[in-house]
């Protein structure tokens, strides 16, 4: 059913979807570092997702109004500066309510302020769209990032620590702490990207034509 829908609305799907087939992490390889290193639990993943969504959506929206007449270099610096300014209240809120998780994610939280969606892709992709299209793309990209972060965080927390959301899971009798290392983050992300690629190949396969009425009687 989804395949039919995809083939019927392919152009619009490709334009708007950054959750599944245009996922910023799994399809384009952007903003990998926080997921590979810092998403070792669901809580870390949720905190990074919240920060990523707030900073990226607000920054790309606000920087849309920077005049295009300005040189590219100045626009890029302005994009990064605005993102860093938005980071200040975001960090303040997160630090106030979840200081432990903020400590756990370390440098990967401030690094979100200069992620490649803000610094490079805003100029080459988002700012070339109309505002509603850009907002839908940003929204789907944020959900896409969050989904990958939470999935990777959940697998690593469950099988690396034997816990979920900080609560021990009794069914898990053994743990593999190596899953918490960056190397396993890369490998898990590689397998997840392969699953998505398999699904993309399935969706892109041409639809089977329904048999003719005459043939059906035969």
């Amino acid at each position: 059913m989804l395949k039919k829908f995809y083939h019927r609305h392919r152009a619009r799907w490709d334009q708007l979807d950054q959750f599944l087939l245009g996922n910023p992490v799994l399809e384009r390889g952007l903003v990998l570092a926080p997921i590979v290193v810092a998403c070792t639990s669901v809580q870390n993943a949720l905190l990074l997702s919240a920060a990523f969504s707030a900073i990226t959506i607000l920054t790309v929206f606000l920087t849309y109004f920077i005049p295009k007449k300005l040189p590219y270099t100045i626009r890029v610096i302005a994009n990064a500066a605005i993102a860093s300014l938005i980071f200040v209240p975001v960090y303040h809120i997160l630090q106030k309510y979840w200081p432990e998780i903020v400590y756990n994610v370390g440098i990967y939280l401030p690094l979100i302020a200069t992620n490649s969606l803000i610094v490079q892709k805003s100029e080459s992709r988002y700012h070339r769209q109309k505002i509603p299209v850009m907002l839908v793309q940003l929204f789907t990209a944020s959900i896409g990032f969050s989904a990958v972060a939470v999935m990777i965080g959940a697998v690593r927390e469950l099988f690396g620590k034997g816990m979920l959301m900080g609560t021990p899971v009794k069914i898990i009798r053994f743990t593999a702490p190596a899953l918490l290392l960056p190397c396993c983050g890369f490998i898990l992300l590689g397998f997840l990207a392969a699953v998505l690629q398999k699904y993309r190949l399935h969706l892109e396969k041409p639809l089977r034509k329904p048999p003719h009425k005459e043939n059906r009687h035969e």
Partner: protein
Amino acid sequence: MNEFFHILRETAMRMASIAVFAIFVQNILLTRALDTSASLFIIRKQYNRPLFGLILTGIITISSVLASFFNDLFTSYQWAPIFYVCIVGIVYILFLLICAKVPHKYRVQITPMIHLSAFNSAVLGSLLLSRSYDLWGQIAFGLGAGIGFLFASYLIDIGYERLRSDKIPPAFRGFPITLIYIGILSLAFYGLIGHELSI
């Protein structure tokens, strides 16, 4: 005079150990996963890797020198990004001004690399990671981070050609298998740190 040489030797030794630490233990790409997308981009586009590494090392090192004078003012992560963005912005413009003096045929090659390397996570990550060092320590860490990036992207490049084989299942071809390969390289680097089995 002897004391001067003693201090010089001590500083050089300390800088060398920090640089080696940055290359192998805190490798910007394989241990910290910073700038993976830029590394894959330069490999895919067949950019001049050593030149990119040189530009990246230059930007990190010069930004580190500037940052070292003000690090004490910003102890929290809250204000660190805006502070580092200002510093990297200055270095970015400086590099582009220098590049403007270079002959056109080289400028065409260098300018996109400066744009790609200025505001990436490797630069800001290195600045954040080396905050605890003094001026010489930050310079050494900056040099080590750049060399480490170059070394890691060279290792990825070696495998990248082989990973395009038709023998790889279609679902894994391209980006997924490259990530798994980087994961295995990262595991090898982790092993290099040295972990003894408890017998």
